[in-house]
């Protein structure tokens, strides 16, 4: 059942690559879209089958593969991976649906998108450390190609930077995993078989640090983030959605799954440091975004800031904050996708991303009124305005982290205010003002071009007023994850009633 999520896109990619007919025709797009739709429907089916009362793994599949390596093909989902899988299937569909049919070399592009989709699904599903690394590394090359082939002016540099950083990330994660398995004397890399918590604390700390840095590059956390602005900005909009919407979630997913869950004891030792790094990311992302003049770069830095919330929430390690972290991953994926999509539409139609040139796009006749309106909604969602999904996640993060790290939580609230600052700058310069009469002869935006953003915004609004659809999948899992943490300051908080919980 779960395998279908991986292999449907991957065999789909083969099908797209071998589909007869001219590569320039739209038929390839339709094939890719059909595969993405099937995957999405299958995800919906799995969600319907998912029992969200259960905390543990569901729908597990295990096949022996290479015994000598301890590599088994073990899959399973729980409340942590299910929302991210759904996000993956959905955003892949949006990416394929939203990609211009006139894109150069469509055969290669859609194959790569589908391969990335399968690889990410595999990473979220894998219940074997080596299998995870396999899928983790598998999405690296396609994304490198996607940045390098379809990117902007500085795409070579950006793609190479992305490749190097993420390759290092993969190596660190692999080293960490090897260390966990060998040092704990396990014969298999199966997730349930390894038990690094029996190791001496110093060793645990070293391994945890390796894993944290590995995933911290991918997330990214602040000192390790420098690949992100270049990669996001130089990538074409669909690729930026893949990168920011889904790939970044691999980093945070890894932090929770392989950091917090495998190292419950040492986690509480590193968590104050993580909270500081998280707060630093949040503030740094917001402040840097304020100083940008390129809207795509602004959105890229907003992504750094928003991923920082996830780290703070994970560091706090309360049931509520962890729920908030999962919610924030999903909400950030949706919001970043719509932001990148809209920025892409603006760039195509207006021909610039420069804040000093853009103006008056809300003009109903000559501007891009619907795109601007959606951009305002998305900006508000990103800044955490109630009624939209961003607020739900951020509030849970604040509420969950405040009892543990009050200063960090307050600084996050401050950064949330700064987020509003740069989005208001962005919206003010882009949507408001008046059009330049010399240049403002922009092509119209068709309904089909707006549709992906409309769908995304509809979901953002829906989850903002009906947040239980966002969170109910993960509540037992979050509770179970927290229960493995040693009793300490965090534990007592987790047991206290949480009035803010929806």
């Amino acid at each position, binding site marked *: 059942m779960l395998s279908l999520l991986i292999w449907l896109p991957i065999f789909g990619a083969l099908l797209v690559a071998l589909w007869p007919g001219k590569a320039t025709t739209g038929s390839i797009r339709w094939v890719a879209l059909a595969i993405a739709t099937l995957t999405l429907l299958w995800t919906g089916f799995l969600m319907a089958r998912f029992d969200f009362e259960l905390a543990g793994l569901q729908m597990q599949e295990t096949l022996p593969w290479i015994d000598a390596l301890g590599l088994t093909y073990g899959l399973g989902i729980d409340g942590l991976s299910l929302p991210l899988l759904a996000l993956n299937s959905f955003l892949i569909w949006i990416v394929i649906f939203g990609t211009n049919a006139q894109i150069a070399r469509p055969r290669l592009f859609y194959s790569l998108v589908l391969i990335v989709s399968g690889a990410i699904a595999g990473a979220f599903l894998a219940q074997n450390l080596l299998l995870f690394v396999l899928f983790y590394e598998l999405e690296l090359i396609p994304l490198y190609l996607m940045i390098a082939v379809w990117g902007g002016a500085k795409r070579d540099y950006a793609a190479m930077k992305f490749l190097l950083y993420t390759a290092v990330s993969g190596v660190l994660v692999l080293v960490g995993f090897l260390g966990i398995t060998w040092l704990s004397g396990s014969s298999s890399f199966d997730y349930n078989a390894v038990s690094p918590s029996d190791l001496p604390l110093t060793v645990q700390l070293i391994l945890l640090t390796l894993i944290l840095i590995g995933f911290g590059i991918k997330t990214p956390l602040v000192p390790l983030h420098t690949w992100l602005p270049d990669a996001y900005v130089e990538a074409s909009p669909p690729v930026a959605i893949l990168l920011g919407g889904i790939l970044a979630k691999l980093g945070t997913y890894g932090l929770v799954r392989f950091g917090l869950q495998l190292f419950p004891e040492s986690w509480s030792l590193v968590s104050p440091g993580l909270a500081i790094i998280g707060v630093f990311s949040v503030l740094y992302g917001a402040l840097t975004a304020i100083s940008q003049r390129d809207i795509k770069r602004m959105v890229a830095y907003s992504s750094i800031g928003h991923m920082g919330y996830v780290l703070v929430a994970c560091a706090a390690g309360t049931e509520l904050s962890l729920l908030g972290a999962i919610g924030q991953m999903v909400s950030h994926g949706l919001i970043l996708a719509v932001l990148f999509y809209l920025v892409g539409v603006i760039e195509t139609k207006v021909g610039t991303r420069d804040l000093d040139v853009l103006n008056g796009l809300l003009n109903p*006749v000559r501007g891009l009124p619907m795109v601007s309106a959606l951009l305002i909604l998305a900006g508000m969602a990103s800044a955490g305005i109630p009624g939209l999904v961003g607020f739900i996640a951020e509030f849970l993060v604040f509420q969950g982290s405040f009892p543990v790290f009050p200063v960090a939580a307050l600084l996050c609230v401050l950064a949330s205010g700064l987020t509003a600052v740069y989005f208001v700058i962005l919206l003010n310069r882009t949507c408001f003002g008046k059009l330049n009469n010399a240049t403002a002869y922009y092509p119209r935006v068709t309904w089909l071009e707006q549709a992906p953003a409309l769908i995304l915004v509809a979901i953002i609004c829906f989850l903002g007023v009906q947040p239980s659809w966002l969170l109910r999948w993960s509540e037992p899992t979050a509770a179970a994850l927290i229960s493995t943490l040693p009793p300490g300051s965090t534990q007592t908080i987790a047991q206290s009633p949480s009035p803010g919980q929806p």
Partner: protein
Amino acid sequence: MTTAILNQATIPASKHEYADIIHRLEAGGSMLPDTPENLMQIIGIYKAYAVPMDFYWRDLLYIAERVFLDPFPFFKYFLPQEYLDLHNHYAGDDADLRIWRGPATAHPELLAFMEKGETFKMPRLFHHLWHDRINMEFAEACMRAMLWHRHMYAPVNQFDAYLDSDEYRANADRAIRAYFKYNPVMLGLYQLFPEMFLEQCRQMSYYANLGLFWEVMAPVFFEMSDLYDEGGFKGVPDAMNFLVNGIFAIAGRPIYHHAYIRGECYEIIPKSKGFTWLYEAALPYVEAVFYRTAPFRGTKSYNAQAKQVPDDQKDFHYGILYADVFPVGTAGIPPTLLMQDMLHFLPPYLVEYYQQHCRGEDDVLIQLGISFQRSMYNVTSAVIQALRTALLYPLDDPNPRHLMANRQFFEAQMDRFNRPEARLRMIQNQDYR
């Protein structure tokens, strides 16, 4: 062309910022470049403008004469049949001076629109409530612009001075008393606050003034459209000269304000005062509506400290010659009302033309707005040439001193466009649409 050569030879070239345009004016041309595309645009727009204008002038007169001081004029935009059948003095068989060869009653396209609108045939009240109607508010805004910019042309303009005279007060007083004869409340109020009613009455006089002005322009524009369809105009200067000739032919038509109260006519401004169309209606209209009007709420801040709006009304520069048309369709941009009105009556060749440019049907409102701007530059050119004819010398005058006087007049006129908002430079470019 001979005049052009003559001028160039007699007096040195102008050093003005708009020297090219001044030379064109001296050669008998228009501020608008003479291209077939421009001619098609402006004539098409004259046609599209004339149909709502046919409604405007009838309704303005209806309000001035019949609605008068009604404190609750809920139905002032509902023209009675009488006013739809009202004969335009410059069209039809019984015209004073037949400018348009068509019928003197309301234009058939207007009647068709009033009946069906953009939806379907239903009672006029529903058309009104569904906003499927002529935006009469635009005509009222033009009227109010003239009212607020009173005394622009003093002492040439006698109309404004008359509105403040004792004679006018006495005439208005009789009409007001007659109008509220059976309404003791309003009569009592009139006793208490006579100025309030008088000012309203002055506004009504301006309703009449603008209505009488547009009664002339509508047939002029209709006739120009018909002539163009028959192949009558060779270029933009021809179209401008038709307007110049029209201005002189009509210059002497009387401007008056009669109110009809219970079947009786009260001459608030009698025809015998000798107010004429050119000086009391046309020139104030051009000044008030083409040049000045009021700052758009959507583009300027009225904040007194921001000093965006000039202190002196003569410095107002918010008319159609300066307007930024790109925000048409947005909140706070009054010309949108007119653009929407014209949208219903575009001739087919303009519809086709707009579909080929920019966003086609999606931004017709702005494209036609810019055509409207072009056409109003041509109308203003006609006014400038008419003034030059009336006050100065012919263009082919052999005396260099006379030509220099003409030159100075043109330069003074062009000085008004020496500000960044003026669209004069932009309309020289065919790609401005």
